């Protein structure tokens, strides 16, 4: 295993940030730690990096126990949400930093920096200062800086959190392609379920310092183990005690015995996708997601009476 975390607990005063967490991460994988703020995902990442020392438990990288090894001797790469660019250094100098502190030869550093600048598409910007770059460029520089020393594991703490939606999406695709190219074991922390599902091979869902579920994106989406994961991994509507995904709600014009009568409250057209807000006789509200073509076939408007049928209901025994 590239990373093994065993029974790690980290407290800040009375607050338990990470609560007895164990986690194994396979070499060459891209894993997302997903959870709301305060779920302990960033703290767990910082414990793996050596930026926080756990109160109890151990961390091993490539089979070696590094729990007491300081960050600078762990052979990791770390990317911060707010870039942590060295403001007084040029882009090239920033990228060269890890190599310079390792006393590599001048020519080796020069070649490696040129290679990385190309890899992260910052060609021609080597002599700029971080303040002269856009947020997206700065984060790519930070990534090149982290990759320069060929880390065993690459740890990214909400790397796209400070960027606007468009740039975030571009960088996400780019990161995925980069990972397929360089294959370094990568862990990315995010609170954005779409980002996690899109970029990672494996997603670890956390809440209140604990791991709720881990698995590949499809597994999590199709078979969530509890209400929290179901609700966090994608949109849901409640139907009594059960939960249902909006695209699993079928709208019909006539009843067929298993349907429930409902009234269309509002129709929101988002291009190809259409969101229909419905109110049941019981007063419960549902959101159905259908396509534009389906809506055209139904030919319904706001206030119309329809019949709905959940295709797939998820029920969870315990109230988590």
């Amino acid at each position: 295993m590239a990373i093994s975390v065993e029974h790690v607990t980290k407290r800040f005063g009375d607050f338990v940030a990470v609560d007895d967490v164990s986690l194994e991460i396979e070499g060459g994988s891209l894993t997302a730690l997903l959870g709301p703020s305060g779920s302990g995902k960033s703290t767990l990442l910082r414990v793996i990096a050596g930026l926080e020392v756990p109160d109890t438990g151990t961390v091993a990288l490539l089979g070696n126990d590094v729990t007491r090894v300081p960050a600078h001797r762990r052979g990791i790469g770390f990317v911060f949400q707010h870039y942590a660019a060295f403001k007084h250094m040029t882009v090239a100098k920033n990228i060269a930093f890890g190599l310079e502190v390792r006393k590599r030869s001048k020519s080796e550093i020069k070649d490696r920096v040129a290679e990385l600048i190309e890899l992260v598409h910052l060609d021609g910007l080597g002599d700029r200062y971080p303040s002269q770059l856009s947020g997206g460029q700065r984060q790519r520089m930070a990534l090149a800086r982290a990759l320069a020393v060929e880390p065993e594991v690459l740890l990214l703490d909400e790397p796209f959190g400070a960027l606007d939606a468009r740039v975030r999406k571009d960088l996400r695709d780019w990161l995925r392609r980069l990972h397929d190219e360089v294959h370094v074991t990568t862990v990315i922390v995010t609170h954005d379920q779409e980002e996690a599902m899109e970029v990672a091979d494996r997603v670890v869902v956390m809440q209140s310092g604990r791991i709720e579920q881990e698995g590949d994106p499809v597994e999590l989406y199709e078979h969530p183990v509890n209400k929290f994961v179901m609700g966090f991994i994608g949109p849901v509507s409640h139907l009594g005690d059960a939960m249902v995904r909006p695209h699993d709600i079928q709208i019909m014009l006539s009843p067929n015995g298993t349907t429930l009568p409902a009234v269309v409250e509002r129709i929101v057209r988002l291009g190809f996708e259409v969101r229909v807000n419905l109110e049941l006789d019981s007063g419960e509200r549902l959101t159905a997601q259908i396509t534009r073509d389906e809506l055209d076939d139904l030919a319904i408007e706001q206030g119309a009476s329809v019949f709905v049928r959940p295709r797939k209901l998820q029920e969870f025994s315990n109230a988590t």
Partner: protein
Amino acid sequence: MTARRWTVRLLALGYLSALLFIPVAMIAVRTFQNGIGPVWTAITDPNTVHALWLTLQITLIAVPLNTIFGICAAIAIVRYDFRGKALLNAFIALPFALSPVVVGLCLILTYGRTGWFGADLANQGIQVIFALPGMVLATIFVSLPFVAREVIPVLREIGTEQEQAAATLGASSAQTFFRVTLPAIRWGVVYGVVLTTARSIGEYGAVAVVSGRIIGVTETATIHVNTAYQSFDKVGAYSTALVLAVTALSTVLIMNLVNTRRGEG
């Protein structure tokens, strides 16, 4: 709007002129009242040269020590939590609050012949009071806060992320300090050093108390100005004062240069 702006400008300039520009200009005018000859004689007088040299020596010892201490204290206060941190913070401001004369007396009470360590030090053959060590101590005391006070806000502003990034990239604590922290706080340090230097050169009260004011031995430039003035050696007093004023003015100019450049860094 324009009228109001002009009024404010004139008021500020008038205030500065009455209190600063005119007196400083007067020194220059009075110094050269009888031409350059007497000024040259006064400045090349062995006692004047010795006084200026002594001030330079004291400054060259006090400023580096206070710079190192100031940076260490600032890092301790901003980056670490420890018992007595509030006390350290308060003590660093103390020299601002304490009158230099009181500082001088405190040093005499501690290091003087009848003081706490004085007798022991004297037995070792080390004289502190009425000698260079005492004057250096007095100067260090009064110019202590500047570097720390300038560096603390800069350190707070840069935060710890750059230092953490350096650590994850394999830099040891020393490498992180010299390659990341120090360059990031450099303008704060320079600003603090300039203020410390100005204060060290200009210090009078504390140094006067501990020096014993022995002409040609423990007389610094500022004390020399005062002694010369009181013994009716006006040209001597004005000339040395002018040297000090020019030095102070250059320091202020350097400071302003630093301030403009700080914007770019």
